[in-house]
């Protein structure tokens, strides 16, 4: 399939546009009538779906950008070069999702720039804010060759390619800090976060699980786009990613089990409460099952098998972010007499963000040289 063959106005596109329009209206409603009118947040539940899914999840889903860029430019593993561009573009959309949602989630959106000038170095939130700004800029630089190629600007293109290794190193550094700092956000609340997730290793867990998710997300995307845009999937790359997944998933599984045993103990996870069952779901669906499947040769070497594992890891890691951000506080907040379930407007805005990312990716593939398809 060539770029010209990609049809923009398909039924899927129409559905995506409708979701985006509806989500846009909900976002406007939130701006004019406030968080109380549009969300189910409360004094006991100050953070909900937008923080846990859009911000924690969006940033984790964007980890493919720094993992693949680092692999290609710092480890000089050129085999993976064909997937650098889609991975970075995906990261850019992940960060756009996170940045837009946090702007809607904070009470006074037009003051979003305050942390950049009002430094408060004791605050993890300050660290997070600075990283979002710096890394979004870095991602824009990393993906700028797409634009320079399109606009036929060889000198700018040459300049960016010349400094690319430095930019990628900077991006890897920012991502290492940013992924881990999102876990560090919760260190301040030892009495609120369930011991199933709370530990001083939380920042490290976020970093490792982001790398695990990165490999699966990039692989998922590569297989999916080869189906959608009908080109031959790069088998060699996908098998390599699957081997990487096996190693990282195994490492993360050991970490999680170590954390459980040295923390609340295995019995706590099996006590049958909703919170414990959510923990088990995350563990089994997102870590244990993918690890066991990847151990099997006939899964790890077949694209269908790899694709299935990718889906499990993506669901499992996003579930982990939802668990840390929402479920982990359910027992504490429940004792205070408060429950939380997102409002339909919260869901709608989140769905619109996902629709935006999918459509944005598709448009980029059509007009920019993301997948190196024929023109």
């Amino acid at each position, binding site marked *: 399939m060539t770029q010209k063959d990609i049809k923009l106005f398909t039924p899927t596109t129409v559905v995506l546009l409708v979701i985006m329009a509806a989500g846009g209206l909900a976002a406007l409603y939130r701006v*004019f*009538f*406030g*968080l*109380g009118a549009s969300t189910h*947040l409360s*004094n006991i539940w*100050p953070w909900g779906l937008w923080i846990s899914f859009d911000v924690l999840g969006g940033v984790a889903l964007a980890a493919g950008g720094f993992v693949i860029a*680092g692999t290609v*430019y*710092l*480890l*000089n*593993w*050129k*085999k993976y070069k064909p997937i650098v561009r889609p991975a970075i573009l995906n990261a850019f959309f992940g960060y756009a999702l996170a940045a837009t949602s946090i702007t809607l*989630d*904070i*009470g*006074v959106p037009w*003051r*979003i720039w*305050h*942390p950049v000038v*009002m*430094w*408060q*170095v*004791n*605050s*993890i*939130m*300050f*660290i*997070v804010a*600075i990283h979002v700004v*710096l890394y979004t800029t870095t991602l824009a630089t990393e993906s700028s060759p797409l634009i320079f190629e399109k606009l036929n600007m060889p000198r700018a293109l040459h300049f960016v*390619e*010349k*400094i*690319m*290794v*430095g*930019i990628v*190193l*900077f991006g890897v*550094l*920012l991502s*290492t*800090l940013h992924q881990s*700092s999102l876990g560090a*956000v*919760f*260190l*301040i*609340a*030892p*009495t*609120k976060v369930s011991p199933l997730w709370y530990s*001083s290793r939380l920042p490290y867990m976020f970093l490792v699980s982001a790398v695990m998710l990165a490999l699966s997300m990039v692989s998922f995307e590569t297989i999916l786009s080869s189906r959608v845009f009908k080109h031959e999937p790069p088998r060699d790359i996908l098998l390599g990613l699957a081997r990487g997944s096996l190693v990282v998933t195994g490492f993360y599984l050991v970490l999680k089990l170590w954390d459980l045993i040295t923390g609340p103990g295995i019995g706590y996870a099996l006590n049958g409460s909703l919170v414990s069952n959510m923990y088990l779901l995350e563990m089994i669906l997102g870590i244990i099952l993918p690890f066991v499947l990847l151990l099997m040769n006939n899964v790890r070497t077949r694209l269908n098998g790899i694709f299935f594992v990718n889906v499990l890891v993506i669901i499992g890691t996003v579930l982990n972010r939802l668990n840390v951000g929402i479920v982990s506080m359910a027992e504490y907040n429940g004792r205070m007499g408060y429950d939380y379930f997102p409002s339909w407007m919260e869901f709608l805005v989140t769905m619109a963000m996902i629709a935006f990312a999918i459509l944005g990716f598709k448009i980029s593939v059509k007009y920019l040289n993301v997948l190196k398809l024929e023109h």
Partner: protein
Amino acid sequence: MSMNRRDFLKTAAAGSGILLASTVTPANASMPKELPPEAVGILYDATLCIGCKSCMVNCKTYNNVPGGALYLPGRATSYEVKPGEPYWDSATDLSSKTVNVIKVNKSGTAVNKDNNENGYSFIKQHCLHCITPACVSVCPVGALRKNPVTGVVYYEESRCIGCRYCMIGCPFNIPRYEYERAIPQVRKCQLCQHRYEEGKYSACCEFCPTGASIFGKVVDLRKEAAKRLTLKPGDVYDFPVQTVGSKEKSRRPVSKYINHVYGMKEAGGTQYLLLAGVPFDWLGFNKNISEAYLPDLTWAYIAKIPAVIAGVILVGTATWAITKNRNKDKEE
């Protein structure tokens, strides 16, 4: 890739320079841990409280003026009932309109005061003004601050972006948010800081008729609290009213206390101290609150950032230098 080692090092150095400049922090950046010698606070004695809620009413009245914790231009009061409704304000919990609340906990027949068996106890809930406040440490823009002299934890609305991290960070669940407004603020007790500047003190203490809430320097309040725990139930004692050094006393028999001054050690110590005749977890206080300084938990991460920066740059550069010839044969 056409980049030589010198270009690479230049870019890496520039990048790391920017990042180092933005993350290396002065040594005193971590939070203060000592009680300021002139710090002021409140001692609440639940055994003296009669539940009249005079403190709640006057809290609202005297904080609805410029500088007050509940002030909103154009709003006369912050009562929870709608205008025209024939009810007295009946806040049952802290909210964006109530930063001080009297609650009652009952059990069984609820006839014995300050008893958790077939009894009841009042409790007064508001900001505890921690010595090392988690809310101040987590605020990304410094909208919540601690006065270095009085130790009051106060709020600067013009800085606040509304991220509500303070609400996650506070171990006592004190900060409240104006979800009902399109341009919301955080609301919490600011110890009537605006009145202290005028030579007055917290309204809840000034209008407490029994001396259940008394204002004063924290060092004096700690002494007073410790002294009360040494008294025997039934002894007659002159309880100071309004302030800890007040000449006005309320003479009455001492009730039975549990042997715990809440706020001496909780979350590293607070400037609001509480005494009661029943255990504090029975009154709804979290019994798992750590005695450690909460901001240390996040500082442990932040303090490692410079090392991470150096480590990633070193390892990244070394990896690049070692592996850059790896695929040359294949490519050429």
